[in-house]
């Protein structure tokens, strides 16, 4: 079974995003970029499925600027077999919307015919939480979002999902789209030898135009601003003082 994993290049999760003074967006020039953390989890899950003999080949796909090549190399170093880079922007500040990403992925899937797609639940830059669901809709496939456990058996997958009240397990028909939540696994680090080996693994380069997909955004970003600030309050010296303050504030 072939598994496709879409991986996005995003601001590193340790970096605090800074809004540009002119309100035009978040400053991404000279900022550390990494693979979206949920996508590392997705890649890891695909590798584990391969180690179990369930998956036969893992194809990583990234859509965006050419620098996303680095993200794909990371996926290859972790253990993906092949990568496809779809160049859809030349400015690092241009984010490709989930709908356009889903359309491109649909076209890639038409060529690659995977039985399983494991995406991340959410990109930590635009916080959309949408691409997997949109892709499933465009393909008319089943979907299993926010996965904390995946088991493949025959023509179906059983997926445990993190939901508001706890956990839910569903069975979905293959082919399917799963999106990875935090508790699915703990992703491995790529070892140095594997990083070297990854340099030789195949990485195809395409463009959005190759797939005939228009990536013009449907949502125009009118402006980007900082959230209302919150200033630090006071330190209290004792539990008694804390209780007094909370009573004064009327919250206990």
């Amino acid at each position, binding site marked *: 079974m072939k598994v496709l994993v879409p991986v996005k290049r995003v601001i590193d999760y340790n970096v605090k995003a800074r809004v540009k003074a002119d309100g035009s967006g978040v400053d991404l020039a000279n900022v550390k970029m990494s693979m979206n953390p949920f996508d590392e989890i997705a890649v890891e899950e695909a590798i584990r499925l391969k180690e179990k003999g369930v998956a036969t080949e893992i194809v990583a796909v990234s859509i965006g600027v050419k620098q996303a090549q680095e993200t794909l190399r990371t996926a290859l170093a972790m253990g993906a077999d092949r990568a496809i880079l779809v160049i859809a922007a030349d400015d690092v500040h241009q984010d490709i919307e989930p709908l356009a990403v889903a359309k491109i992925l649909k076209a890639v899937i038409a060529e690659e015919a995977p039985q399983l797609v494991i995406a991340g639940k959410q990109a930590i830059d635009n916080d959309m939480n949408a691409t997997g669901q*949109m892709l499933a809709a*465009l393909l008319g496939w089943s979907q299993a979002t926010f996965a904390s456990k995946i088991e493949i058996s025959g023509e179906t997958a059983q997926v445990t999902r993190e939901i508001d009240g706890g*956990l839910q397990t569903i069975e979905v028909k293959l082919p399917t789209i799963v999106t990875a939540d935090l508790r699915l696994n703990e992703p491995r680090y790529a070892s140095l030898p594997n990083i070297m080996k990854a340099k030789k693994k195949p990485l195809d380069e395409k463009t959005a135009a190759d797939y005939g997909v228009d990536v013009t955004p449907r*949502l125009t970003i009118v402006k980007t601003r900082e959230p209302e600030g919150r200033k630090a*309050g006071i330190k209290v010296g004792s539990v008694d003082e804390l209780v007094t303050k909370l009573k004064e504030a009327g*919250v206990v």
Partner: protein
Amino acid sequence: MAVLLLAEVMNGELGVDATAKAVAAVKPLGDVTVLCAGASARGAAATAATIEGVAKVLVAEDARYGHRLAEPTAALLAQLASNYSHIAAPATTDAKNIMPRVAALLDVMIISEVSAVIDADTFERPVYAGNAIQTVKSADSVKVMTIRSASFDAAGTGAGAPVEDATLADDPGLSSWLNDEVAASDRPELGSAKRIVSGGRAVGSKEQFAMIETLADKLGAAVGASRAAVDSGYAPNDWQVGQTGKVVAPDLYVAVGISGAIQHLAGMKDSKVIVAINKDEEAPIFQVADYGLVGDLFQIVPELTEKL
């Protein structure tokens, strides 16, 4: 202009708080029709009809809408879409599962986690873990969106709206439900609680997490957790507060043994009063706390529980 709002229905009951907050958010956009879908949904529909500002309630009661599977509910919404300019839902895990699928079926973008409605096409939403707020203008014919409940006050009680049956849509039959592991609790829900006590990695074990729960019970509060506490198995997944967990804005948020990573702050920094208990006086949580107490949680929490 008219809005179709997918209500939060769980086991036949309306998630009143989340739904009423979403109604308040979308009311300025036009007449609001609330859709209650579920294996049992009539009770929820009757409750939804009493929310102020609701013009009509549609019920889709059928086994195919049970267990909150995405595919049949998305098909239903897509079928009903042509009568509406906006399709919305409170940003619960169910809606986050369903609404992007609806948007793609209609070939429009999803507008996730709307925190303010500017006009019929323009909305604010937080990005980058809440470190930036974007104003976006949609060029799509119909706007499909989820509403960040914590950013809105709930609509009150109204005169009562008419309830009608919706025409059901075909079930694509792609998935089926196996089981739920949902713990029943007498505590308030995280999303609607006025007070929340959250514990972090420093609490140290599942057993010791009981200390956080005791303090919460003393305050009549809901219990939350950091990702580290959930990952370590001290607390269940649905207690996680943060960028990728629940977003809350209670009157009182008490963070115990939580460092205050940006991903955690994203879920609680709009709380009215924040209390931080942490032994490291440099912990970033103190930068957002109204009242900070530096010290060992294992001494402070029992003492606080006793003195409240």
